[in-house]
């Protein structure tokens, strides 16, 4: 009977958890999209420039890859207000996740650009293409394909990383679960349900990303089946 009661309980809390899942999705998508927008220029600066700009980009990547996401989150949410910069929970969560993800994504992209042979760029320049055009039409389409496997890993990580924002109380999936636990004291059913939701979501995302990789794969530039870590 306990088992059935638990199932009913789990069914009843599902809508509340799904509300949290929506926030998880929002944070994941926002962090990844804004992340890639920052990651491309950072990768280009690190790959093609020298001097202060390069140092700055390198320092940024090293700091955000070299410190725990949790520390970054606390600095943004608890540290910056002391300097007069105050965020609400959601914005703070987004800012930390986005800066962290951009650092990793810039490395995937930088590695992928490096994997496109220099001869490609030389051939494009020899045809009279300007540097940016050669990059846009020849290097980037290949680099993005090569970065896809690493990128789909990033998506799967991010969905789960988002749960650390529980520690500043942003209302994503895991936080919702914790609130239900503190209200009902049913630890195991709630955690099991939260875990099940994560698994379903991550498996679904992986399938979608596999399809995307397949969809964009080109003979000679196949990446499916490979999981690249740059």
């Amino acid at each position, binding site marked *: 009977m306990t088992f059935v009661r638990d199932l009913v309980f789990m069914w009843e809390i599902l809508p509340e958890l799904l509300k949290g899942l929506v926030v998880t999705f929002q944070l994941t998508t926002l962090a990844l999209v804004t992340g890639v927008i920052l990651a491309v220029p950072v990768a280009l600066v690190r790959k093609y420039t020298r001097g202060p700009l390069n140092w700055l980009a390198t320092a940024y990547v090293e700091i955000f890859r070299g410190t725990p996401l949790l520390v970054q989150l606390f600095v943004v949410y608890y540290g910056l207000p002391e300097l007069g910069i105050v965020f609400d929970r959601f914005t703070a969560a987004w800012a930390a996740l986005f800066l962290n993800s951009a650092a990793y994504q810039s490395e995937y992209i930088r590695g992928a650009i490096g994997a496109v042979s220099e*001869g490609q760029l030389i051939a494009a320049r020899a045809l009279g293409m300007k540097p940016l055009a050669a990059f846009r039409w020849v290097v980037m389409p290949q680099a993005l394909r090569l970065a896809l496997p690493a990128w789909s890993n990033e998506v799967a990580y991010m969905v789960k990383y988002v749960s650390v924002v529980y520690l500043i109380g942003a209302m994503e999936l895991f936080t919702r679960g914790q609130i239900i636990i503190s209200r009902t004291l049913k630890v195991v059913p709630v955690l099991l349900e939260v875990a099940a939701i994560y698994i379903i979501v991550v498996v679904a995302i992986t399938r979608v990303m596999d399809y995307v990789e397949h969809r964009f794969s080109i003979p000679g530039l196949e990446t499916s089946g490979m999981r690249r870590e740059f």
Partner: protein
Amino acid sequence: MVEPILKVEDIHKAYGKTEVLRGVSLHVLPGEVIVIIGPSGTGKSTLLRCINLLTPPDKGRVWLEGVEVTDKATDINKVRERIGMVFQDFNLFNHLTALQNVRLALIKVKGMPVKEATDKAMMELEKVGLGDKADNYPAELSGGQKQRVAIARSLAMEPKVMLFDEPTSALDPELIGEVLEVMQNLAEEGMTMLIVSHEMGFAREVADRIIFLEGGVVVEDGPPEQLFTKPQHPRTREFLHKLTELYGEHAESRTRRRRR
């Protein structure tokens, strides 16, 4: 007196302390086919790259049709449109089909409408005998086919001069002939060509002039008959002798077989 289409004057290029080119000059007349030979590491490829400034020379000047390429005021991208270049390792764009490879620069550099560029690209592919491979990606082509697509890609831009940097060196022996044949047709059509190659048979048959480059300078420059039968310089003789030992007469027979 015909004006040279391409003039190279006193080109110097050093990598660190290594002087690769130490004052190379040459005049190329319209329609002339020049084969540059010489030991490896002697600056042959560097010389070609100095002509379209893929490698900017340290010193010296280059003119194409009377316009100074090395002048800072010259738009090098405009010049490169008129100098075709074919590479040893093809450098086809891996993410594009043969057809897309040939038409990319037509669209993005010349600003040609897609339809027109597609037709022109198709025509160029047919000219090198690869009309049926238009939709294949580079990974699906043989080395010889890749190099023919690369030649078509250059020709589509309607260059005034074509530079070939060891176009057959990365090919399996049985694929060399098809590339040389395309080049020979091109020569017969009157294209001005500067070719770095070890294919002596081809050089002998197709070249108007052969330039022997060694130690970063032109050692000898003359018609094939002169270089092959009575080279003026002992180093030329030595080098040609070594080549014959290495490649034997079969290097020669490859194009002979195809002679019409």
